[in-house]
């Protein structure tokens, strides 16, 4: 049902074209605010910014291949109580899928949001992004796109993006086409939902068809990343096949709980590990040390990670923010995607697929898992 529209691009300036698009949305009153990545005053780092005045769209750079923190978590802070105004939000597929889970958890609202997503060629490690900006400046996004289109594998993509099998999302309202497209002279935007189509009509953009090479290119990307994903999961299933092995992987974990803070679907106001349930009585440490000779501190490291898996392994969309946030560079995303690869099929559940799918642990069937209880 996607009916697409064209956005002319002069002299390769994609951001200028997008600025036209987003300011159009504001001027036509389709939305009252836009929420998208904007260049910071230093001109280098890009952060999601809420903009109401089209004039302030000067420094927008939505396609910059970086998301310092999860856009889903940020957007949910704008919508955990139904906002009185409509927002057009630019979310990459993984952010949108995390956002859908937050909607189910009543931490975010879907109706007031016009979601603009893009074919996602992945994001860079922060260092690699800074290098690219220093080289390409304003054209960083397009430089990145060209090298991806050329299949340049020297690019230091985030590990999470290398193995991400969701480079696009049908559920978003509007999808920007990059695979098999030529953004430098024409941007193709497709209305994937009624709201999306109406928005495009309101802007009176010229009709356009899907870029023909797109679906083949998309399938190729998905196939490649799925293979890499399966390899990664295989590798980490071996690497963490016992508690001792897990302990070794996590041996440098300092219990800073930063991965929890960065994770979009870890929605607790305060993590139970920070509550007094885990403020053990000093005597208890003494007893542990007595029973086993010695006890490493901080304790409950593996306990924390496994408990977090029990809480969110079914909701994990593999966005990689946890690994990015880990000061000790632990393979947190790999461990959690491995856990998810077991938990999600167990309930035939795919996070972020659709807002109507109930959370697996909030429902149950009359007759299920009969082998579990030897019935």
């Amino acid at each position: 049902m996607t009916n697409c529209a064209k956005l002319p691009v002069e002299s390769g300036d994609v951001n200028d074209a997008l600025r036209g698009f987003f300011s159009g949305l504001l001027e036509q009153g389709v939305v009252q605010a836009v929420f998208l990545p904007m260049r910071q005053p230093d001109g280098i780092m890009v952060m999601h910014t809420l903009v109401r005045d089209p004039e302030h769209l000067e420094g927008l750079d939505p396609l910059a291949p970086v998301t310092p923190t999860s856009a889903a978590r940020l957007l949910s802070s704008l919508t955990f109580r139904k906002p009185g105004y409509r927002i057009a939000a630019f979310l990459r597929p993984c952010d949108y899928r995390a956002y859908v889970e937050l909607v189910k958890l009543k931490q975010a609202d879907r109706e007031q949001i016009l979601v603009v997503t893009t074919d996602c060629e992945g994001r860079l490690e922060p260092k690699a992004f800074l290098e690219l900006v220093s080289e390409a400046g304003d054209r960083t996004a397009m430089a990145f796109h060209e090298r991806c289109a050329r299949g340049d594998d020297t690019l230091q993509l985030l590990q999470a993006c290398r193995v991400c099998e969701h480079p696009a999302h049908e559920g978003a309202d509007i999808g920007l086409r990059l695979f098999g497209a030529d953004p430098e002279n024409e941007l193709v935007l497709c209305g994937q939902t009624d709201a999306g189509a109406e928005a495009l009509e309101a802007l009176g953009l010229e009709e356009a068809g899907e870029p023909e090479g797109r679906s083949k290119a998309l399938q190729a990307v998905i196939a490649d990343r799925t293979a890499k994903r399966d390899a990664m999961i295989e590798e980490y299933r071996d690497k963490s096949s016992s508690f001792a092995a897990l302990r070794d992987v996590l041996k440098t974990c300092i219990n800073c709980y930063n991965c929890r803070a960065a994770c979009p679907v870890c929605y607790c106001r305060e993590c139970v590990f920070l509550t007094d349930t885990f403020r053990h009585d000093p005597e208890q440490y003494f007893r542990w040390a007595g029973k086993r000779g010695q006890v490493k501190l901080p304790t409950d490291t593996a306990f924390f990670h496994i408990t977090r898996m029990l809480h969110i392994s079914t909701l994990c969309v593999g966005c990689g923010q946890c690994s990015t946030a880990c000061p000790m560079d632990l393979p947190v995303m790999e461990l959690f995607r491995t856990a998810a690869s077991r938990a999600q099929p167990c309930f035939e559940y795919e996070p972020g697929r659709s807002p109507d799918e109930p959370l697996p642990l909030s429902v149950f069937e009359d007759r299920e898992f009969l082998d579990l209880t030897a019935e």
Partner: protein
Amino acid sequence: MEDRIGFYVCHCGSNIAGKVRVEEVRDYIAGEPGVAVARDNLFMCSDPGQEMIETDIREQGLNRVVVASCSPRMHERTFRAACQRAGLNPYEAFHMVCIREHCSWVTEDENEATKKAIDLCRAGIHRVPLQYPLDAKVVPVNPNVLVVGGGIAGMQAALDVASAGFKATVVERQPTIGGHMLQYDKTFPTLDCASCIGTPKMVSVGQNPNIELLTYSEVEAVDGYVGNFRVRVRKKARYVNTDSCTGCGECAEVCPVTRPNEWDEGLKERKAVYRSFPQAVPITFAIEKKDRAPCVLACPAGINVQGYVQLIGQGRYEDAVRLIMERLPLPGVLGRVCPHPCEAQCRRAEVDQPVSICRLKRAAADRVDLQSLPKPEIEERDERVAVVGSGPAGLSAAYYLRLKGYRVTLFEALPLLGGMLRAGIPDYRLPPEVLDREIDYILGLGVEARTETRLGLDFTLSDLKDQGFDAIFLGTGAHLGMKLRIPGEDELDGVVDAVDFLREVNLGRGGAPGRRAVVIGGGNVAVDAARTALRMGCEEVRIVYRRTREEMPAYEEEIEEALAEGIEIHYLTAPVRIQGKDGRVTGFDCIRTELGEPDASGRRRPVPVEGSEFTISCDAVIPAVGQRPDVSWVREEDALPLTRWSTFEVHPDTLQTGLDGVFAAGDAVTGPATVVEAVAAGRRAADALHAYLQGGDLSSWELTPAVPEQTGEWAEIPEGTAPEARAEDELLPVEGRAASFGEVSLGLVEAEARREALRCLNCGVCSECMACVEACKVGAIDHSARDEIVDLDVGSIILATGFNLIDPTPMTRFGYGKYPNVFTSLEFERLTNATGPTSGEILVRDAEGRFDRPPESVAILHCIGSRDVNYHEYCSRVCCMYALKYAHLIKDRVGEQTAVYNFYIDMRCFGKGYEEFMNRVQGEGVKLVRGKAALVTDKAEDPEEEGRLIVIAEDTILGKMMRVPVDMVLLCTAMEPREDALDVARMFGLSLGRDGFFLEEHPKLEPVSTASAGVFVAGACQGPKDIPDTVAQAKGAAGEAISLSAFGKVEVSPMTSFIDPDLCSGCQTCRELCAYSAIEFDARRGVSVVNEAKCKGCGSCAAHCPSGAAKVSHFTDRQVFAEIEGLMA
């Protein structure tokens, strides 16, 4: 203030100390941090034990107490009370560790038992400091009590509750209270007569102002908690108003339908309107209704077939005709020509053959002079309705419109009224006098008839409007014959269409078509034409039909009669050409056919066979290949929409044509169809016209269905229903029959009709023949009653739902169901009861099942289905005693010399006065054979045993096989739970024991309370027991309920959940998980909040909440973690 824990380990005599070295446990725990005092004691639960705790708390300043002894389910309350007496908060201070049921009693090795005990105690010591104060929640108790089941247990409980001044509501599934006990005659051991001691209880329950009686009712749903239950009860429709019914029983006298009476275990009959037994409370009757019978559903006119068949069975022909005429004005006519689709559905076919319903309708009509029926009062209206066409549709519409008070004028083109009934159907099937009689009755109601006035010729539709008719009904039928479209059809003399031929003959104007006639077609019209031609003098009449006998649409009996009259039928023959010489028919060319693929109508298309032409010499050809309405009269300006088969296009429900106020029905709308469908459509049109004339908006008008929705449930067909041949009506002898138009079928003789009607199986049970309505002097009967839902608010519930008896049929070796004189105990109780099948006489049955003579000897077999791992392992406790009672009753009633043998394993006469009763009965000469009866057979081995039942058993005392020939065998069948025990248990929150009865909270200490607080059990529903124990339990349960009601408030476990608003992120998953919807969402603060009144503390929310915001008090994460850490340290 640091922890000061008092630890007490109990010896429990040798129960714990026998295996667990309690001193070692005491000393180990003494060393644990926080433990201020560690003692052991022989019996902690004893008063000295408790005092020791209290004094330690006061003197040693303890703030925690841990007792290691038996299961907390036993004495947690005792020790909490001790702590409370000593000033501590019972929930904060106390924790109990079970080292008896879970440790000493189940462990062989002493060391392992002691180690396990230590671990368990240490867990308690770690947990108790983390407990915090909780105050028991007190909720008000609604003083009303619900008693489920009106047997002796329910009645006794209700009476006790009422006498304590509280209101009890008794819900009983049967139409009367009384239960099993009131089915008995005498009761052991005192031989009190059951009704003498039972009926006073029933009467006082019936009259007690504090007891509300809901009989013929069932509980459908229960929710809420102790003190505050809300119970939904379905009061099943009784169809008898309990206030006005005096229980006189007149209605039962006239009710034609009999059913086996459940109260008499099926040994005696009762009527569809019935009372279980004379002393029933309430005294009022009830009517058993199942779904409308299949025949009623099949009748296009929706006549209550079962109703009039039953009335005919009673010889009440006028009532039958009146019932028929509610849906159909021409009983006599339809009794002769209806295709009777009802008979195709009659379930009697499952036994032998369907009931001959159509002939029965005729039998009734022929025996009633319509004029003698009381004139229906008609409330005159001034609107005028023109009914065009006096066929079945027109007559029906005219009749019902007239009954509604409209001034009806009937227009008929032909000189005589009746349409197809007159002109189509020959006299030998429908004598004109029958038709006239019924038409005159209709006219007699004030319908004005104008014959020989043809629509389109003598008047037009607009004329009618001008003449002031407010509405018009078109019943013009389908009188135009269809053409054969073969050469020679039009131009030759001797070719006459069947419809025209029949009309002319029936109006007395026609002559013989010729000497040798050929009729073409296979329907009723063709057969009628052929037999009429025969009667008009044709020497030879043949019917030519393109397909085979099976496909012929004519009625089976008509074809039979035609063949019998010598008419020849050529199957698989199709018309080709009619030959003629100088304008006259001389022959008829036709061709053989074969049946090919089925056509659109599903009938197989006849395909001509090459070169098989042949000629039939004849001088007359009568085509009868279908009719269509004559719509030549319709003019342009009438603008009457027609279909391509030239029938009127009408709205399917209202039957209104395209023209406002013009309705139509019958063959003119459907094309040629059956008479009954036309009559039914005429009645529907009358309803619609009535609505139209009252200015009703017809757009939303719906046909009120003749039959309410169905649950798909009919009376089961009793086994062993003897097959009886279906009554066939007498026909005129074949010879000479074809020479006259005298009616061929003479109908059923009265005796045969009455007998045929009694073959009806009464599928719907109550046949709604309304006989009872007339018989009831106070007008208490209301067949339109519906089930009622009643919501009760009660504080406590007493379940007294009783028991069932096992069905001994599968135990083939005892011969129950095979030999008529093998009875279950309950069946024998009914034999001894004065209101039973034999009015209290103990008799045995002859081969046909009739009780005729007293037995000379009786065998009573104990333990049938009890004490048997293949059926019920438990002993039913009551059989030995009632077996002795039976022995006494037989000796007393039938006579001293009657031999009574009891085959037993152990005589269990444990109760007060029981042994004395056995002593007395043995004195009266009952023979006790110590050996379970193995076999009951009728295979005699010597003359003495001929015709009697032989019980075979080994007498283990004699060490010999015994063969005891007797006339009657009584099986002491096991008491077992009700078949719906599991559903009832789940509805009230109980569980079932291994024996399938309701599980009490504790077999010894809490026999009448259950796991579900506020729900008590009494009587056999909790396990097999006799009346004394049942009454004792009933008084116990009443005591429990009264203590709740009297105290007015009850402590509810404070261990409910609560949500910490600072931690809650408002994801509301807990709200979705909560089974009691006890969690609401506070949108303003964006957090979920627990409604503590509704929360039962199950912890579903707490176990899910990742942040730990939702906690259950007394089972918080910290407390459980501490317990685990203590366990494994």
